[in-house]
Structure formats: C-alpha cells, structure tokens
C-alpha cells in the first residue's frame, strides 16, 4: 500500500522539496508535476511556517513568500487533492509541529489521508516526542519520517528501529542550505542504520550538485534536495518551470545511474 516504499523499489531515490504556495499554489502544482516528469521519485511539500527554526535563509524566505500569498494548510490539502487526480508520485508534507498541533492532530492526519499524502516530516518532533502523533498517524496510514543527525550517535539505532516510511539522514550540522562540502562520516551513520532496519535511508541537507548526489547515492538509498530547487524558484518565480526541470533531471539522472 505504501507509495513511499515504491520510491525506493527499483533504484536509488531522488527526493525533491518545494515550499507549498511559493510563489503560488497553482505554480507549486505545476512545479511538482514537472519535477515528476524530470525523474524525481518522491516530492516533499513544505507547509510554510512563520518560524522555521531548522531552515537556512533560502527556505526561510520561501516560507515568507508563500505565507504572504495567503497560503494556508487547507489550501495545500486542496492542492494535493487536485494533484492526486493526475499523479501517483509519493508525496510527503514537511512542516513544523505547531501548524499540525493547532490544526488538530486527528483532523490533520485524516485530511492527509483523504487527499493522498503518504507521509510527513516534522523537524521539531524528535524521537522522545513522537507519541504526540504516533497513534493518529497509524490510524490514518500516514508515515512519520524519522530524522537522524550527525550528533545522534547512540540514538541512531533506537530511532532507526522505530522508523517508518524512510529515514531522513541529516548530512551536516546546522540548518538547511547548499554546502560545498559535507564532512560528516555518513558511512558509519548509515552502517548503524542498516544494522537494525530495512527502512530506506535518504540523505539531505546541503546537497546541490550531481556529483555530490551521485557520491551520496552510492552509500545511501537516496538523496533529498531542497534549497537548491527553492533557490531556482526564488530566482525565476513563476517562470521557474523549465529551470526546475533541467536541474531535477540532472540530479535524478545522477542518482539513478548509481546501481
């Protein structure tokens, strides 16, 4: 039943992120379909939050652009419902806990299920606080993605053992944003993960070139790219579609070439 599992089935996965409603809901829909056409295996849709503490400046600004356009959680549910008429690509929400909590956990996860969302990533919901949403997520079949950081050390196995969907391995210290170098010992983190679970592990934070994507795909089940795509949207706005296609194509080709 899991569309997320399908993303990792045949090859390494390329996961793309866009902020929902940046620059408009209509454009986000167009971008997501273009991202799928360019070869991405899963799309993360950011529900904008006023205070995204895990984001670098690029995605912070995208959140502001989207909120100032009047984007709301309900409008994004409607957008996903419309997208689901035309695509079967796995879709996960990425947002902070407060918009979910304030909406009401039951109502939020029910709406996710009704509109065709497959999973959710909540960066300010660490392992200890998972019980907030665990039961209701299971009830509606939404997979809550666990994050593992360079500092997780002795926590890696516990988190991995209890993960669903896929595991988001944070490549670097700090916040989201492109980096020229990733210095974390990803090999040992991924080895720890693999020793306890078959749940696929994708690496994100800082990845922006095909060479980086290829290198990281060799040791993981996929790569996640956000800021680099959002930067293209910031630069080209409503005209970003062909630029997104070109970039996502180059990245997903690099990832899919790794066997």
């Amino acid at each position: 039943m899991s569309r997320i599992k399908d993303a990792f089935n045949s090859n390494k996965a390329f996961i793309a992120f866009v902020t929902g409603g940046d620059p408009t809901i209509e454009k986000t829909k167009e971008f997501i379909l273009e991202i799928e056409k360019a070869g991405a295996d899963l799309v993360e849709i950011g529900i904008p939050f006023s205070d995204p503490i895990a984001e670098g400046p690029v995605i912070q600004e995208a959140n502001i652009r989207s909120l100032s356009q009047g984007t709301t959680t309900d409008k994004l549910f409607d957008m996903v419902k419309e997208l689901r008429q035309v695509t079967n690509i796995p879709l996960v929400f990425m947002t902070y806990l407060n918009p979910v909590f304030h909406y009401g956990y039951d109502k939020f996860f029910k709406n996710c299920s009704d509109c065709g969302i497959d999973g959710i990533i909540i960066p300010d919901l660490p392992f200890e606080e998972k019980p907030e949403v665990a039961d209701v997520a299971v009830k509606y079949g939404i997979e809550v993605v666990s994050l593992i950081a360079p500092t997780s050390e002795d926590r890696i196995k516990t988190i991995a053992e209890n993960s669903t969907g896929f595991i988001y391995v944070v490549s670097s210290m700090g916040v989201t944003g492109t980096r020229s170098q990733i210095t974390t010992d990803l090999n040992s983190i991924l080895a720890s993960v693999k020793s306890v679970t078959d749940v696929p592990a994708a690496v994100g934070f800082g990845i922006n070139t095909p060479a980086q994507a290829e290198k990281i795909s060799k040791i993981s089940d996929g790569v996640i790219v956000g800021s680099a795509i959002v930067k293209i949207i910031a630069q080209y706005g409503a005209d970003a579609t062909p630029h997104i296609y070109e970039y996502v194509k180059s990245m997903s080709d690099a990832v899919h070439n790794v066997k």
Partner: protein
Amino acid sequence: MLNPRFGIHGGQYIPETLMNEIINLEKQYEYYKNNKEFNDELNKLLNEYAGRPSLLYYAEKMTKDLGGAKIYLKREDLNHTGSHKINNVLGQCLLAKKMGKTRVIAETGAGQHGVATATAAALLDMECEIYMGKEDTIRQALNVYRMELLGAKVHPVESGTMTLKDAVNECMREWTNRVDDTLYVLGSVMGPHPFPTIVRDFQSVISKESKEQILEIEGRLPDAVVACVGGGSNAMGSFYNYIEDKSVALYGCEAAGKGIDTDKHAATIAKGSLGIFHGMKSYFCQDEYGQIAPVYSISAGLDYPGIGPEHAYLHDTKRATYVPITDEEAVEAFEYIARTEGIICAIESAHAVAYVKKLAPTMSKDQIIICTLSGRGDKDVAAIARYRGVDIHE
C-alpha cells in the same frame, strides 16, 4: 532525571541535532546543582560580584499614596548589569564552563540578557555571541555598544519580525550549527527542557531571599507577589518559593501593548492558545493555522509571543493569575514610581508596578504586597520621552 513537564506543558520539541546536547546538559545540570563546589562558586559570584542579596525595600510613600496594602519592592534593578538576568547567566555560564564549553551564545530582546551574558562571559573568559532582532538593535543601540564593550559579538537578526522571537530562532539555528564547544544560554524560563527548570532554579534566589527578608521584617508571609511576565523568568523566580504557600496570591503582568482588543499586544495568557514552539508546549499568540503571531509591546523585554511552560501550568491550575497591562498603564506607572519613590525602573517592571497601583487600594492596610522590580530603567528613558512626544538625543 528531572521531570520535563509542568502538567501538559514543556517537553523537548527540537531538532534531532540538538537532542544529545540537551540530554547532556540535563545530566550535567543534575550533577552540578547538588555539587558543593559549584554552589559555593556560584554563591560567591552572586554575593561578591552581582551584589546579592538584593534589597527588599518598603515603599512607604507608595503605600501611603495608594492607601491599601503595604508595598515592598524586591530590588533586582540594583543587581550588577541592572536586572535579574545576571542571576541566571552567572549560573548558566559557570555550568557551561564546568561542562568544558568555551563559547556561549544568547538571544536578547531589550538587551538586558545580552548584556548580562556578555558580562558573565567576560568575567569567566568565554567567547560570546549575541543574537538580537535588528529592530531591537535600533531601539536599544546603547545596549549593543555595551555588549561590544564587554567583548561580545552582536548579530542583528533580519529574519521574520526582527525582534525577540526571531533572535531565539536564529540562536537555535546557530546552536545546531555548533554544539561541541557552545552552550546556548537561554534568557528566560522557556525553550526545551531542561532550560525552563534550570533558569527557574537560578532565578528562584529572588523568592528565597524575599521570603527570608519579609519574615525577618514583618514576621509573616506576604499576601501577594507581583511581577512582570514576558517569557517569565523574573516572575518565576519571584513566585517559586511561595508556590507551596497557598495564602500568597501570585500575579504575573503581561504586556497588553495598545490593548488586548487590538492586534498590538503580547498578552499570551489573555489572548493566546495552546501551541508547540521554541521547544516547548505552552501558550502562544498565533493565528488559526498555528502561525506565530507578530506581537507588540512598548517593552522590548516583554515583546514575546509565548510564555514559559511552568507559568502555563500555574495558570491552568489557577495557582497564579495573569493580568494584562497596557503601554499607557505601564508608562504611567514608570513615571509614578519615579516621582513617588525616586526609582526609575525598567518599563518591563513598570507593568508590575501598574498592577500594584490597581491591587493595593483593594487590600487592607495590614496586608502585604511584594512587587519585583526586575530591572532599572536607564535603557528606557529615551523611549518614554518619545512616547510622551519629547524629542531627546541620547
């Protein structure tokens, strides 16, 4: 382990990158809080450097003028650096040093916590970086220079509303970037566990002293304790040792800005709702979709959209009462206490004084109020002049 919750409030809603560091902080704090050497060192700093114990002053003229309860002022404004913030930063910076950290980072609103942190860092030979909303660096330019004089680097924060909440955001982001050698010295009883407990413990010296002092002077407990609340550290410190004494009413004064029926206030208890933000479950000013609302107060130190989780719990259990005080009431109280008692207190503290002005006349002459003056008002003089339409140059 310490309890991470106050009723349903509190918790640890932070990125995974910080979790091991927060767990380590809790372990280290649990060890040092009962360590004699640590406490001796901290008490020495508090007494010989910060100027504790602070005075409990009988405000006789105010008492007579208001014609009700006897009013005592707990003079945190007389501490070194001019506010209660020093109590917490000496504790946290000393803890950081014991933990082997060489660098501290902190957020600041009005600049009081930033100045206090820069001071403690200078004294304890630590590197110090302060995050301050760009808006606040303009409102409180003098404090920016003060921090720089003390050797700190000040980062103006240009994201979001460019005020205190954005400074906290940026400080958390910086902490996820560099945890090995750095402790985030949080300025209030907020954030993820164990910060609300650590900061409350270090601030509880206020009520520990005031209780001893009032018992010595009056031979009995006060009937009411009044303090201003932004995040709520001076109020938590002022309340803590009276929580078990049910006869003592506790009042927290929040910033109502231009009024709680306008959209320009920071009255979290009066107008906020349950939420999860800055690492904690508590009450926040937010919109129908859980977006954190821009807040406003004449006082940069109370200009925060949330409140510490232990206050949220004291509110839920009705142990403490939270009252909104407008800019206008606070400014009047600021001027009133200056003329009546010859004390220029912080505009934050003037919110507490404003409530005392309402409360004291409703009480009898044999009753007692202790009001905490959390800080001194030098930093606010220019803003008050502006509020009154007087053009002065600092």
